[in-house]
């Protein structure tokens, strides 16, 4: 506890004006890491087949012959990708993703699977539906940002807190996207759905922060730390469920959603408490 108290003292008492820059530095650091990895910014964000359309095949316990066959067909083409993943249950599965332009590759692989008698799941994703959702999600993000800004402004009656919360939420979204991109997870409707959930989740922690800062009495540091401990506990419980889901599931959608939520919750915590909280605190102190 003494160590924890010292850390809290260091961040929230002695250096609270400086820690505001940590989320901003972190944001630029993530961008630079991605840029170094991919070379071009356009390579960072790739769309997956849930947006651009395509096929996905999942084969449980694939043989080495099958893996080699898929490797041979997917070699040196950007229309096909595959992963061999081991699950916590002790089995392996092969995930093959083929874009619409690689339909011939898909047919070849499927014919091989049918011939060899493999049991597999296969899905075809529609580009029309994917793009329509993508557009809807972008509008939804913008609407959410505007609504959250307005609600917070209504609560605080000041533009600075609402802008700080909005900026913090935007940082969270992009931090999550860049982190997923670094781990080579393309943008999918599952990621976008998870990011929208993070918006709502973020509002909850901002509401607790706001209530404790502006409606409680006592030292500002003490109020901040009380709110921080509550939100920290909440985030630990939420993250633990998503970690379990990520580790135990073999389903692509569940994995992507849980990983997005894990990143989103972590970045939301960092951005809320190192950025938003400190800005609101400075406003409070100036108000005195």
């Amino acid at each position, binding site marked *: 506890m003494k160590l924890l108290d010292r850390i809290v003292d260091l961040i929230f008492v002695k250096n609270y004006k400086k820690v505001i820059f940590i989320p901003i530095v972190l944001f630029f650091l993530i961008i630079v890491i991605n840029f170094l990895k991919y070379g071009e910014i356009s390579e960072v964000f790739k769309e997956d087949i849930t947006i651009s359309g395509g096929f996905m095949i999942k084969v449980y316990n694939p043989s080495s012959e099958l893996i080699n066959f898929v490797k041979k067909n997917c070699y040196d083409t950007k229309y096909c990708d595959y992963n061999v993943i081991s699950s916590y249950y002790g089995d392996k599965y092969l995930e093959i993703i083929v874009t619409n332009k690689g339909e011939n590759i898909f047919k070849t692989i499927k014919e091989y699977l049918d011939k060899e008698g493999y*049991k597999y*799941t296969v899905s075809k994703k529609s580009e029309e539906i994917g793009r329509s959702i993508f557009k809807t999600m972008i509008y939804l993000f913008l609407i959410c940002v505007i609504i959250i800004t307005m609600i917070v402004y209504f609560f605080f009656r000041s533009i600075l807190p609402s802008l700080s919360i909005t900026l913090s939420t935007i940082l969270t979204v992009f931090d999550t996207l860049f982190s997923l991109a670094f781990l080579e997870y393309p943008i999918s409707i599952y990621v976008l759905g998870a990011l929208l959930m993070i918006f709502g989740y973020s*509002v909850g922690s901002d509401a607790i922060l706001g209530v404790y800062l502006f409606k409680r009495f006592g030292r500002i540091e003490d109020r901040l730390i009380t709110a921080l401990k509550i939100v920290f506990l909440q985030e630990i*419980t939420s993250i633990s469920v998503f970690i379990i889901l990520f580790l135990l599931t073999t*389903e692509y959608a569940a994995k992507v959603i849980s990983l997005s939520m894990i990143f989103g919750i972590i970045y939301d915590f960092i951005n809320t408490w190192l950025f938003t909280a400190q800005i609101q605190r400075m406003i409070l102190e100036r108000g005195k």
Partner: protein
Amino acid sequence: MKKKLVLAFLDIRVMLMIFLFIFSLFRIHPFLSKPNFVRVVYLDDKYFGNLAIDYKSLFLKEIIINGSISVNIKDRESFIYACNKYLKNNSIVKFIFLREVFPYFYEEVESGSIVINCSKLVEIIGIEDIPFSYITLGVDLTGGTRIILKPFEKISDRKLEEVIKTLKDRFDVFGLKSSRLFYIKSGDKVFIVVDVPGGSFYRIKNIISSQGKLEAKIKNDTVFTWKDIVFICTGDPHCEYVYQEGNYWVAEFEIEINKVAAKRLREIIDKYLSKGDYDLYLDIYIDGKKVTSLKIDEGILHERDIDKLTKAKITTKESSRDSVITRKKELQSIISTKPLPTRLIIESYEIVPPKVGKKIFREMLVSFLLGLIIVQSIIAIRYKNPKILILMFFTSLAEVVITLGLYSLGGWTLDLAGLIAIIAMVGMGVDDQITILEESLSRRKGLKEELSVGIKEALFIILVTYVILLGIYVVLVMSPELFLRSFAYTSIITSSIGFFITRYSFSRFIEAIFE
């Protein structure tokens, strides 16, 4: 504190939560051990009479063949085995059903004796193995096919209903009675969703991608179309046949046309006969593609009685018995229903083998249980209070059980996306309880009024989060992507149950404990 707790239990929302929890448990109806009977999903009312009206509460326990052979039906496999082994033409069959009069309590009900053979039996009664519970699981969890279709052109709502009905009728004729069809709209676009548990994609594809416009022609002259057909033989061994011819299997079934079409047939035959052309074939086309060609024999060429010209046979040939029977069923399902008002394009599909679907379901169940345990462990470490732990555990469990109960009651389908939403709520639902608890703990040393104010503030914070999330979910529900819609629906239901019922109830108990 005891008095406060009693008062909390008497609160209307608390009573509602407890009632809904118990009701939902019965509705979900988990079968914790495998029973020795199967569930009835369909009964033909022509053979079963009043029993067919009540089929949803029936289970098939046993069949008695020819008065002496008794077969216990413990699963679908034993049913098919009994059918193939014991049912010959004109077997006398009696069915012993169980009717559920109260959850887990049954009474025996017998059907009358029915004279039947095996191929007819599977048409008049549909059964399925007893599922884990009464919740309808999606094809991604049980195995099957999901297809999303788009009409080729814009159609009205009335025509859309017609499309759904025609497809449903085709599936019924084909024997896929447990299929689910519905449409979703996104802006000005419409998509039709077809869920076929256990269905094969390639069989279904032919049924749905065929518009079904039948034409019969002799050379270029149209003899009759789908509008002229008055009867199609389906499931009657007197007018449909399957037999081997050399290396091929042949399936035939009779159709009957109206007298106007029969008269037209006579006139067209006469036209060619007058030109000396005796080598005539009746070509059957579906959607412009020839499916069969029937030689018009001597008897028909010279038949003057119009009534005798009303019957025709549709023949199909395949290399194996299974494929010819499948093709026969496809043709019967397409011809016996009206043509679709428009062509349908397959936008996307998902095929999940049953074993894989069950594996995915098990993974999600394990994730849910482990997630619940870990969350409760964290709560236990933080608060070190058994009353709080029990309360939080019961509240989380109640939210999930009531959600599943609603799904069972509404007959809604719980799929992978819904399960992920429920698992997410295990972690995120606890957050609101923590908010209420922390507000109460921080004020418990004060006055009763302070505690109530604290809880009200906590509920306000929960309200803000709920409203924002609800807004997001409502928009996701309107998207054409089924996964997100399903995720959002379940999230709306779970968070609404949480906000209106369980979290308020939780706050009442907290008030009672800490006052």
